[in-house]
């Protein structure tokens, strides 16, 4: 790695569980989160799309409304299922994750109000469907705003996820926009967007193919087979485009993260996708589509699982050497911390055996000299004045130092020193009150 790579030290507390366990949890939890994020984003886009078609063919408006009702549920699940991967990333990649967050800090924290706003708009869009029947364009505008925000949000997450992989870039980043220019961010964005569309198309099929769903009653004027085919078409189109976006991601990622396991995982993922796409093609030819849904869904789930695993393997390999160096530095630093602490303890013991006047002088330098001088007023009165007041009353002097009162109206309050030991106080009294300055 270049000499311009920072090597921070890790937090010197053990991981709360064996690392492999945490990693498996991370991959599973992340997958679940991603599924609902995809459904939320894709659903929001589909809602807008069908509502727009509904302007001309009103039957589509009802379809849009049906999809809108699922978006709010999916968004709630996306958020709560996001907490576990967040926690796991925090614990497994503490240094990388927090560094990326800091470097894009403003955008990162703005995610909170932005997502909140997106959710509020989504609810508004859904609950005002009836009330705004006669203001269709305005209503559609609300939906477009919500979708627009949903489209912006992933940029921040992806910029951070990418930045985590490249410690050698950290010194060159200046804010969120410059993080966007890290080569693989944009390809990853399109990769993610296409995945959302693909998943949502399939979800559309899954939702409307159900026997118990009374299609004609809910969506008069539409044809079930046709809607299923539209869903399949979306999935097929998005998946085919992935054959462009995927390689683009690969070529923009630095090669030091590639490993046989990672390439194998991605390769198997592609292999699982091919028969799925072929099955979708067959469904599109069939007069009664929907029969092969389970197989298609299974194969594509396998693809996603393998892709997410591949992504994780890339991250592991890319960071392996950096992590290793970091561990060595952490251990070395902790050794130094221990040695210095032991030294300090020994010095403290030596101090305790110091003669009183010297201990007093030292304590004074460390605690009082900031505000008190020998003859002149600093923040508090000079030592000469102390001698005048307490010359023959060391006990009162000690009492004042431990909990000072408020005496002189034109002086600020003196702080208390409850942390001084009896011996230190004794030393102070000897030093201050016998001084002939």
């Amino acid at each position: 790695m270049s000499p311009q790579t920072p090597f921070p030290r890790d937090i010197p507390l053990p991981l709360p569980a064996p690392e492999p366990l945490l990693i498996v949890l991370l991959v599973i939890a992340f997958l679940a989160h991603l599924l609902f994020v995809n459904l939320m984003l894709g659903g929001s886009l589909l809602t807008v799309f069908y509502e727009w078609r509904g302007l001309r063919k009103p039957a589509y408006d009802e379809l849009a409304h049906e999809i809108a009702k699922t978006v709010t549920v999916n968004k709630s699940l996306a958020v709560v299922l996001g907490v576990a991967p967040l926690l796991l990333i925090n614990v497994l990649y503490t240094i990388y994750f927090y560094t990326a967050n800091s470097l894009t800090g403003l955008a990162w924290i703005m995610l909170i109000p932005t997502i909140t706003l997106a959710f509020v708009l989504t609810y508004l869009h859904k609950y005002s469907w009836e009330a705004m029947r006669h203001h269709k364009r305005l209503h559609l505008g609300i939906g477009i705003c919500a979708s627009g925000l949903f489209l912006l949000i992933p940029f921040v997450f992806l910029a951070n996820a990418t930045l985590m992989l490249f410690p050698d870039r950290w010194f060159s980043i200046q804010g969120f926009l410059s993080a966007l220019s890290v080569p693989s961010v944009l390809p990853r964005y399109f990769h993610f967007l296409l995945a959302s569309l693909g998943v949502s198309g399939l979800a559309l099929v899954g939702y409307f193919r159900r026997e118990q769903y009374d299609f004609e009653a809910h969506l008069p004027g539409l044809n079930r087979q046709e809607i299923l085919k539209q869903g399949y078409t979306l999935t097929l189109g998005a998946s085919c485009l992935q054959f462009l976006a995927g390689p683009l991601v690969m070529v923009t990622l630095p090669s030091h993260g590639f490993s046989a396991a990672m390439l194998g995982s991605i390769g198997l993922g592609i292999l699982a996708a091919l028969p799925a796409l072929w099955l979708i093609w067959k469904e599109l030819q069939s007069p009664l589509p929907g029969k092969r849904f389970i197989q298609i869904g299974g194969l594509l789930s396998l693809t996603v699982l393998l892709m997410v695993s591949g992504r994780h393997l890339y991250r592991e390999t890319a960071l392996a050497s950096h992590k290793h160096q970091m561990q060595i530095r952490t251990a070395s630093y902790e050794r130094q911390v221990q040695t210095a602490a032991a030294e300090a303890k020994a010095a403290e013991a030596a101090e305790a055996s110091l003669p009183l006047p010297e201990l007093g002088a030292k304590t004074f330098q460390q605690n009082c000299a900031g505000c008190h001088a020998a003859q002149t007023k600093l923040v508090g009165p000079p030592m000469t004045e102390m001698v005048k007041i307490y010359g023959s009353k060391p006990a009162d002097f000690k009492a004042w130092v431990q909990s000072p009162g408020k005496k002189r109206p034109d002086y600020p309050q003196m702080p208390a020193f409850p942390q001084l030991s009896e011996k230190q106080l004794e030393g102070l009294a000897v030093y201050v009150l016998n001084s002939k300055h």
Partner: protein
Amino acid sequence: MEFPLFHLDFLNNRILIAVIAILHVLINHPLAVGGIPLVTLLEWQGSRSGDARWDELAQRIMKTFFLITTTVGALTGVGIWFSTSLVNPVAIGSLIRVFFWAWFTEWLVFVTEVALIMVYFLSWKRSLESPEAKKRHIRWGIILSIASWITMVLIVAILSFMMDPGNWMSQHTLVNGFFNPIYAPQLAFRTTLAMLMAGTVVLSLTGWFCRRDEDLRLKAVSLVSRWSLIWLPLCAIASYWYWQRVPGAMRANLATAVATQAFSNWHEAMLLIMITGLGIVLLLLTAGAMTSPGFRVPRYAAVVPALVLAGCLGSFERVREFIRKPYAIGQYMYSNGIRVQEYPLLQRDGLLAHATYTPVREITSENELQAGQTLFTLTCTRCHTVNGVNSIRVQLNRMYGKQPWEKDKIAQFISTLHTSRSYMPPFPGNARERQALAAYLVSLQTGGQLPGAQSVGIGQLAAPPAYDLNDPDATSDPTQERIP
């Protein structure tokens, strides 16, 4: 030292956390923890009395709660993570290592809670089909109430741990962290307050939801006031218990927490305000409980208790955040993100010798200001800004006035930071660094700005590492030869 530091020089980083966290608590306590049981009570009242208007009222309140908690409530919850990881990454990173399983369990409960809340809210329409369905629905309400309370049980453990780790200092285990001394009183306090606040929030909402049905409004005001009156004395007892247990050193800080140092005496005034506030709540609730057609509380007055309590809870959270100072994790890590244990090393070798992001390692007269700025960023900016809230310039102006500030005086003050103001951590560097920091502070008298890593990055903080990169195992660290 290990992270690029996010810094908002105008707002102050802590305010960011405070705003998000207080908003979250103000939503979570009354609307989730206290709100669900109260809504369930209203629904049960409907099923018991056979008066469908109760059910409708309960449903409308639930819808309000649902919309707020699943948007602002949920996102501010995530926001607490985001903001603390920006403001004090080392502290939150350490807490997560210790409390991972507690948080993970909390997450499982949280998922259950969200699932239940959706079941409860979305199945309301169907529950009207038959008395049996209604009964089942009410049972869901009870289960949901328990789940929301369990999330509180877990999160309070983490909060009270941060104030006082108890036995955890000697044995770093989760269980020790959990049963720390202020856990039970804090849980009691938050639970009772949540119930009380829920009552006052619903009281305010009835004014709106029952605006066309005065008869129902009177009945609802009476019922909800009685609910709140049950919790009020319990809440008072719990707060007293809690106050008793807050460790002594923290209590000494309370005065500055509520107002700033200049207004230390405010502390008592504040207490007076709190007591008066609670008195007003008590009065209004009593009036509410006695509501009848001949004696009604005006709609606007019904909003007052909720506002008063929100104010009290807000101040409580702010005080709680403050009384931890100077620690981020009591006795273990200071608010500047440096562990107590690291101090001897850093005070011996200097902070810059070990910092990851610094422009210099060796301070000279040329790079002194640069070094000073870095030291300020690393050790003071978690609490101070240059120009904004708790501005260091304003503090120094107050101490040293308008005449030119003296570097030596300030350097001397820096060495007694923690003794003169017990809410500040000691300075974690050596004598040369105190001089450099003082020089930088003097330079601020005539102006100056301090941007954070989120806008200028860390490019200018790339001093050659303290370690030899080609030889990771080597002891080429400049300070290493001192090790015997």
